[in-house]
């Protein structure tokens, strides 16, 4: 399996290919979002919400064979696409890998320019939440 660095470099390349074309970037992000498995309505509950600015994001996780599986959804197509990028980088990794992951792709693809600083904060909360899940799973694994 590719490292999270490798995947991030792939993402950076894909975005570099789109150049400065903002519309192309947004369209691409939305396409990525569409590929993300939607959550069931009963999973879209308050407890799973990560508070962003305008959009709602639901995130759930599960530990399977020592690897963390993430699924997420959003009520906006663009946010969902952005979240799908995070999942692509962090999904199916051990809790330790997730905790240690250094996420650099957002800066390289100019994300905060794209979505504005307030929404970038929402994105940071998403990452934090993923790391918190990973921490909890790591604790579980150590107790087992």
């Amino acid at each position, binding site marked *: 399996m590719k490292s999270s660095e490798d995947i991030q470099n792939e993402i950076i390349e894909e975005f570099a290919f789109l150049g400065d074309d*903002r519309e192309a970037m*947004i369209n691409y992000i939305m396409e990525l979002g569409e590929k993300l498995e939607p959550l069931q309505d009963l999973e879209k509950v308050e407890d799973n919400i990560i508070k962003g600015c*305008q*959009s709602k994001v639901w995130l759930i996780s599960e530990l399977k064979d020592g690897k963390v599986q993430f699924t997420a959804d959003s009520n906006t*197509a663009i946010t969902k696409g952005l979240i799908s990028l995070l999942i692509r980088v962090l999904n199916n990794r051990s809790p330790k890998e997730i905790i240690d992951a250094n996420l650099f792709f957002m800066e390289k693809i100019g994300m905060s320019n794209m979505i504005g600083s307030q929404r970038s904060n929402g994105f940071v909360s998403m990452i934090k939440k993923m790391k918190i899940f990973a921490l909890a799973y790591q604790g579980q694994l150590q107790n087992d």
Partner: protein
Amino acid sequence: MQIDSIRKDFPVLNEIVHGKNLIYFDNAATTQKPKAVVEALNEYYYHDNSNIHRGAHTLADRATKAYEASRENLAKWFNAESSDQIIFTRGTTDGINLVAATFGKQFISEGDEIVLSTMEHHSNIVPWQMLCENVGAKIKVLPINEKGEINLEEAEKIFTDKTKLLAVVHVSNALGTINPISELTKMAREKGASVLIDGAQSASHLDVDVQKLDCDFFVCSAHKMYGPTGLGVLYGKRDILEKMNPYQGGGEMIKEVDFEGTTYNELPFKFEAGTPNIADVIAFNASLKYLQSIGRDRIREYENDLKEYGRKRLSEIGSLKFVGDADQKTAIFSFLLGNAHAFDVGMMLDAKGIAVRTGHHCTQPLMKHYGIEGTVRASLTFYNTREEIDILVESLIDIDKKLN
């Protein structure tokens, strides 16, 4: 109207955003500034910078005269009885807070009622809630219909002998509705209540005559009137302003200070503590003069045409649903595009160089009333054009295909 020459007065309209010509449709949030305003700021700092009212030298005199000339012109703009009823504030929000903290604390007490409307901006809700918590008064809310209009028959029932204040928005920033201020004011007056009008969205789009409106207070912001940010005006009726205690202490607001006690200055200085925002007040006058040079009637007529045209063109988009479609409204269009989230639509418009606002527009109770999280809002003004509306419509049709 000489739209080409007007557009030349606003350099920012030539910006290129994401490789496209900027179309600025976020005028309800803040308007762009004509060169005359920016130049007035430069002129002041290059040539006249001085503190006002006290200096015994030439620059202080020039600065004082320019500052007070702005007040005079604002009195003229709003047809106030006199310029000393024009108080400079930091903006609409600050003006409302001033009234809540002074008039509110002095004249509103336990069991009294404050009437607001469903479509108030948070700035005209929260200060009253804070006051109510302090004094034990209660807020009552004027209901609206599906089109976003205050229902006058229903409104009549809201006012009681306990009503002490009607605080209502003149033009809704989220819907564009022009409210029936005169009728509402009459209802309030019949119960002996005072009236505050939030004129943030009306001050530069409608002909505002505070005497005709018969309001006790009118508040607005310079930055929505093509002037600087962080500056606004509170107009008040003289007898009521004179009864009100000062808001903040220090600086120009005193007549005489002794450790035993202080006597306060006259209006308007009583409410202008500390060194005011001199440069911006002076530049505000430049924006008024600019508007006066075009003429209010011509501006209104032109904006009215944009409104009619925009409403017609946007209605051609099958999936577009207006949120608020009042018979009496300004050129503000709030809408949703099919099931698309407003945020997605806003970002996709931005990618096409079109600046709109998305979200709740600081009117969360109104959004709750409609059962939505927010809208896409395009708010137009006299430097916008029919061609820009056409581009908006084409863009929305394209976005609609992708999102719905």
